[in-house]
Each structure stands twice: as structure tokens, then as C-alpha cells.
């Protein structure tokens, strides 16, 4: 018994060490990119280490000087708009359906499994016909077209989360409202939705992050007007004349990663809960 007591501080120190190493190793790509983004062009080519001798923000300024060729604000804006619309759309479509499934059992036997299994199907299968469809209806290279895809990608997760959350709500409050003569739509909007705000908020953050990070459809369905940042960022790696400007490219990576990274830090609890629930209940 004494032995375990004396080994406790050692074990604790060892745990902290493992934790620190894990954080550094797992986040290594971002850390290394951040370091490079803070070096001057000259320093990048002379010193590839993780030590910055003369920190500078020049690379970040240089991004905006290139706006005539690669307009990062445009890409960021595309991602922001399409991700917001996509997340809201996914929630707007899934919430009433989840209510119907949880309370009326409508479509529980086919719609829910269909949507859940959709998560396990490689979406590239649908990418080609969607491309051809978009071409016909003029949705190619539009933010709206991209937003539809983001909604599609997120529907399985939000549907699972909403259905299980609504099923856990106390039924009595709804019944009371129903006796008062509220219609189902009003009931969902005024009673069920307010009671589910936690789940809605948590899943919309996750849906936003997944949309922001989506790449395959952004690559296939956009060319210039609606290019999202995940695709636009790669343009900065195109060697032109003097080769790739690594510092600028690194700065672009950091700017493109910052929004989901900050959301992840601020809302890690909600994100973690949604991911876990989505995995376990799906």
C-alpha cells in the first residue's frame, strides 16, 4: 500500500508527460505550419527548424497583396456562407423529421436507418451524378449548390442526435400544450425546439465544422465563384515563377484552420458530446 502511495506522484508526472507529448505530436502539423508562417522567406530557406529567429507577420500581409490572383477573403466568405446555409438547412430538414420519428414513429423503420447508413457510404458514389445534375440546373459553382451538399453530409449526424434527444424529452409538457390546442408545427417551434436548444447548438457547431472542412465536393462542384477555402487554400501551393512561397502558403493554412480550431477549443464539450452520441447511437 505504501508503495502505491509513493509511486503516485511519479505516475502523475508520467501522465502529464504523456499528455504533453501526445498534444505536441498530434497537433504537430498545425504547430509546424504556424512556425513557418511566422518566418520570412529568407529564413524559411536557410532555417527549417522549429525555432523562429526573426518572427514576422509579413506572410499574412502578403496573402492580401495577392488578392487579384487568389482572393482568400472570397474563399473564406464562400465557406462561411455555404457552411451556415448548409448547417441551418440540415437542422431545418432534420428536426421536424426527428420529431415525427421520435413521437409518431413515422419513417423510423426506413428513413432513420437509411440516413444513418448514409454516413458509412462513400459519398463519391453520388458525386458524379450530382455534378451532372448541377450542370443541368445551373447549381455548378454556386454557394447554394455547395450548401445543399453540406446539408446532405450533415443530415445523418443531426438526425440521429435530434431523434434520440427528442425521445428523451418529457412528454407531459407537449401533452399539456396539445390539450391547449396547439398545432403540431407550433408545438415543435414553441415547445420542443426551445427544450432541445442544447442539442441543436451542439450539433450546429459540429455541422458547421464538417461543412467548413469538406473538400471533395468543393473540388468537384466549384471552379471560381463558389470555391471554398479548403479548395482555395491549395491554390497557394501552385508554384508560379519563383516556386511555392512557403511562408504565404503556411499563413493561408493557418487562417483557413483558425475558425474550426477556435470553435473546437471553445465548444469542445458540446462537440465531444455530439461526436460520442453520434457514434454510439448511430
Amino acid at each position: 500500500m505504501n508503495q502505491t502511495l509513493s509511486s503516485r506522484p511519479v505516475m502523475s508526472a508520467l501522465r502529464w508527460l504523456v499528455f504533453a507529448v501526445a498534444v505536441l505530436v498530434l497537433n504537430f502539423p498545425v504547430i509546424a505550419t504556424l512556425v513557418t508562417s511566422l518566418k520570412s522567406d529568407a529564413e524559411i530557406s536557410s532555417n527549417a527548424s522549429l525555432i523562429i529567429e526573426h518572427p514576422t507577420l509579413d506572410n499574412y500581409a502578403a496573402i492580401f497583396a495577392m488578392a487579384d490572383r487568389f482572393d482568400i477573403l472570397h474563399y473564406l466568405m464562400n465557406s462561411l456562407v455555404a457552411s451556415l446555409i448548409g448547417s441551418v438547412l440540415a437542422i431545418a430538414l432534420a428536426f421536424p423529421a426527428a420529431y415525427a420519428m421520435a413521437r409518431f414513429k413515422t419513417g423510423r423503420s426506413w428513413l432513420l436507418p437509411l440516413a444513418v447508413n448514409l454516413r458509412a457510404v462513400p459519398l463519391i458514389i453520388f458525386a458524379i451524378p450530382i455534378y451532372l445534375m448541377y450542370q443541368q440546373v445551373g447549381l455548378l459553382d454556386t454557394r447554394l449548390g455547395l450548401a445543399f451538399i453540406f446539408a446532405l453530409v450533415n443530415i445523418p449526424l443531426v438526425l440521429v442526435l435530434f431523434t434520440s434527444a427528442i425521445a428523451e424529452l418529457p412528454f407531459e409538457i407537449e401533452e399539456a400544450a396539445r390539450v391547449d390546442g396547439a398545432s403540431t408545427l407550433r408545438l415543435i417551434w414553441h415547445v420542443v425546439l426551445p427544450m432541445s436548444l442544447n442539442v441543436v447548438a451542439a450539433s450546429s457547431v459540429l455541422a458547421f465544422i464538417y461543412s467548413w472542412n469538406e473538400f471533395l465536393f468543393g473540388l468537384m462542384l466549384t471552379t471560381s465563384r463558389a470555391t471554398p477555402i479548403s479548395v482555395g487554400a491549395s491554390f497557394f501551393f501552385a508554384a508560379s515563377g519563383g516556386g511555392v512561397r512557403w511562408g504565404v502558403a503556411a499563413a493561408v493554412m493557418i487562417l483557413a484552420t483558425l475558425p474550426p480550431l477556435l470553435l473546437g477549443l471553445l465548444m469542445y464539450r458540446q462537440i465531444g458530446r455530439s461526436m460520442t452520441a453520434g457514434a454510439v447511437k448511430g
Partner: protein
Amino acid sequence: MERQTILQGRVLITPLTAFLIALLGFPLLLDLLYSVSQVGFENIRAPEISGLGNYAKALADPEFWAAAWFSLRFGLIVASIQVVAGLVLAIFLAPLFAARPWLIAFLMLPMMVAPALVGLMYRLILHEFVGVVPYYLLEWYGDFPAFLGRQWVFTTLVVIETLQWTPFALLILHSAYAAISPDVREAAALDGATGLRQLVSIDLPLMLPAIGVTAFIRFIDSFRVFDNIYTLVGSGAGGSTTSMSIYIYQAFFKVGDIGLAVAASMLLLAASFVVLWTINRLTARREPAP
């Protein structure tokens, strides 16, 4: 009343159903049609039905099988490593997370980064002149491998994918571990099961469902890998990194062989169904009747 709720339920699921029909059902029909047609970009509106030639072509294409094998191997290896690494970290670091839950946020960060951007970041990090990894390997060992060359590229990709998604395994397995009731452990301790024995005979069996789910999700996600491989190496030296998704993408965009790309898609869909069906049956059998 009964009829009314049925009707209301139908109304409520209609928007979602319509959306899924438009963006999944209709594309699926197009997939089916084009997969049995002679079709290129020039006769896209009027494909000529030609039978199962596209399927035969895909199945006879060694690159199709190479891509399938790549995805399968990649998915299995990566999922196994992630589950083991996630399990070890989740259990070893559990006391830290119990006292300070926010610590886990720093281990979740890799999942917030777009895989496409991670691929791009490694272009920089592994670059022979400006990359940080070659720099230190050169400093310490005087040499570094060609990370993206034929011999090393698979390992490189496995490491990249593992580093980004081990946090997912860690997160799910940590919550499964934390959910084990202290009573169970106390009872086990009274029976003399402590330390490693408790882990093997109590914790791991209780975590088994979570381990299964994690392995399955990680396998699926890595099997359909596209973003990070595409941005880092494309199809790689001699097609050595062509995953199933990349194969379909290239058949469509690079070669313009719509029929082949679509037939390969349908084969992939069929394979997914077989896997899902098997998994569903396995889990259904294991779950105790309520």
C-alpha cells in the same frame, strides 16, 4: 386522432425525404443508368444503353483492384492502430481527464482541421529543403527517407491519418471508460481484481461495444479516404496511393470515362451494403433481447 398523427408524421418527414430523393435518389438512378450505358461528355443527355460492359471493364481493370486493395489495407491498418493508441491514451490519461476535463480539448484539436489542409501542411513539413521533419532527421541521423516515394508513401499516409484521427478513438473510448460505474470496479477490487486484472476482466469487456463502434467508424472513414491523399500526393508514384475514391474521381475527371467511373461507384456501393449488412447482423445478434 390516430389517422391524424400518421398524416402529421408524414407531413413532417416530407421535406427531408424530398431532399434526400433529389440529392441521393435521383443521382442513384443516374448512376444506374450511366453504369449500363455507352456515355461520354458529348452524349451525356442521351446515353446509349449498352449492357454490363462498364462493370466488366471495371472488374477487369487491375487498377480498380489495386485501388480496392489499397483502401481495404489502409482502412484496416489505420483503424487498428487508432483503436489501440486511443485505448492506451484513454485509459492511461483517464485520471488527468477526470480532474481536469478541459485537457481533452487539446487532444481533440486535430479533428477540427480539414483533412485536405492537413495534406497540404505535410507538403510543407515533409519538403526536402524547407520541411521541418527532413531538417531534424538530417540533423540527428544524417539522412531522411523519400517520404512520398514509392517505398515510403504508404507508411507516411498511415502516420498522417493516424495522427489526425486517433483523437476520435480517444474521445469515444474515454467516454466509454469514464462511464463504467465505480461500483463495478469497487466490487471487482473486493474480489481481489486490481490493476491489470481489473483492466482485462472488467474494463475491456465493458468497453467492447465502444471499441467495436470506434473501429468500424474509423475503418469506414479511412476506407473512403480522399482529401489528404489528394492534396498531398494525388495518385502517387505509379498510382501507388490510388484509393477507391481517387480511382473514381480520376476515371471521371482525368480520363472522362463516365461509364467506368459510375460502374466503379456502383460496385463500391454494393460492397458498402455488404459490409453494412454484415455489421448490422452481427450487432443485432450480439445485443441482448430487451
